[in-house]
C-alpha cells in the first residue's frame, strides 16, 4: 500500500498527513481535518455538495485524490468567515433565504464565492451557468440566484 506524506494549505493553514494513494481529498478534509462543512452527496461527481476551491477554482473534492492536492491551497466553507465576519456570499444566503435543508449550501457558496472573485457583477444567466454543476433538491434555485446577486451588490 503506497503512502504519501502530503502538506496541503487549507483555509490558510498548512496541514500535513500521511495518506494512501487512493485517499480522496473530501475524506482528507472531513475525516483528517474534521472540517465537516464540505458534504458528500452523490459521490459520483454529479452533485457538487463536495465543492471546495483548489488553488482558487471550484472543484468536486470527491473526485480529487488527496495526494493531488499536495503543495496546493484548498479553501472550504469554513474558510469563508473572516475574523467573525461572514463573507458576503454567506450573508446573501441568509438574507435571501437561499437554503432549505442546507445540504447543497456549502458547495453552492464556494462556487458562488469563486464566481464573484472572477466576475464582479454577473448576470442571472452567468450565475445559473456557474452553479449548473451544483444540484439543489429543495429551493428551485430562485433564491440561490438572489443570494449570489445580493453578495455581488454587497461587494460593489
Amino acid at each position: 500500500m503506497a503512502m504519501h506524506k502530503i502538506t496541503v494549505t487549507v483555509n490558510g493553514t498548512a496541514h500535513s498527513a500521511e495518506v494512501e494513494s487512493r485517499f480522496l481529498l473530501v475524506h482528507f478534509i472531513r475525516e483528517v481535518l474534521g472540517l465537516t462543512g464540505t458534504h458528500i452527496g452523490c459521490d459520483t461527481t454529479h452533485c457538487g455538495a463536495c465543492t471546495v476551491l483548489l488553488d482558487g477554482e471550484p472543484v468536486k473534492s470527491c473526485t480529487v485524490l488527496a495526494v493531488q492536492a499536495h503543495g496546493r491551497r484548498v479553501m472550504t466553507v469554513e474558510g469563508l468567515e473572516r475574523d467573525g465576519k461572514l463573507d458576503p456570499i454567506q450573508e446573501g444566503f441568509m438574507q435571501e433565504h437561499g437554503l432549505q435543508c442546507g445540504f447543497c449550501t456549502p458547495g453552492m457558496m464556494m462556487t458562488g464565492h469563486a464566481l464573484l472573485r472572477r466576475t464582479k457583477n454577473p448576470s442571472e444567466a452567468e450565475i445559473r451557468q456557474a452553479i449548473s454543476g451544483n444540484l439543489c433538491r429543495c429551493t428551485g434555485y430562485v433564491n440561490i440566484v438572489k443570494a449570489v446577486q445580493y453578495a455581488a451588490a454587497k461587494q460593489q
Partner: protein
Amino acid sequence: MIPAAFDYHAPESLSDALALLDQHGEDAKVLAGGMSLLPMLKIRLAQVGHLVDIGRIPGLEYAKEEGGFLKIGAATKEAALERSDLIRSKYPILLDTAAVIADPLVRNRATVGGNLAHGDPANDHPATMLALGASVVVRGPKGERAIPVDQFFRGLFTTALASNEILTEIRIPVPPARSGGAYLKLERKVGDFATAGAAAQVTLGAGGAIEKAGIGLTNAGPTPIKAVEAEKFLAGKRPDDQTLQEAGRLAARAASPSPDRRGAADYKREMARVLTVRALKAAIRRAGGPS
C-alpha cells in the same frame, strides 16, 4: 467510495512520466484531470496498479497558433479553453464544444487530451476534432509521432495510444479564410452526455460554394464517427437547403447508435441528422456565407 488500492506517481517531467509508464506497462495509466478515470476507479469499472499523474509536468497547458496550426497542450483544462481569447475569437466551434462538456466544476479539472485519450464516443471533443481534421501528437519511448484523429479511435474506450505513450498536443490546421465551424449537442440536462451531437467545419470558395466540409458525430456508435460520405457529397456544392438536408441524411446513415435511456436508435439517428443540418448552417453562417 474509495478506489481499490493503487500506487500514485507525480513525475515532474515528461521523460520521467514515460519511464514510469514503460516500467509498469499495462498495469499503469496516465492520470490527467481524473474526471473520467477517478469515477471509473471509484465504482470499480476500472482497476489499475499505478497512476502516473501528468498534472505536475510543466509545459502541457497552452493554446496557441504556430506554424500553420492551432496547438493545444494535452493537459489544457476545458475551463482554460473556454477563457482563451484566441479560442473565443477564432475558434467558436471549440468554445461550443468545451461549454457543453459536463459542468463548470468538472471543466476546471477535465483536460482536452483526456477527453480524446479516453476513447469514449460519448465525449464531445472527438467529433469536433474529426470535423477540424486535427492530429494528436504522441510521445513514447521511441520518440514522437503524430496520429490523424480519424485514425485515433479504434473501438469503445480504445485508441491508437500504446500503454507507454502520452498524448502531448492536439494540432489543428489553421482554417483558411471564409471558414467556420459549429458544434451542437442535444442533452437531457446539464452535465449529461449527448443524446446526439454534431460538429461541422466548412470552408467556402470564392463563388460561395462549399470547398471543404468536415463532419463529426458524438455518441452515434462505438467510436466517434466521421461522416465521410456527407463530407464528400458537400464538396463543390452550393450550400442551399436541399443540399444540406441531403448531407444530414448521409451523416445519419453513417451513425449506428445504440438504444439506451437517452432514446431509441432511430430517434438518435434522426437527432444526428437534424443536428448535422443545423451545425452545417451555423458553420456556413460563421464562414460568412448565407444562413
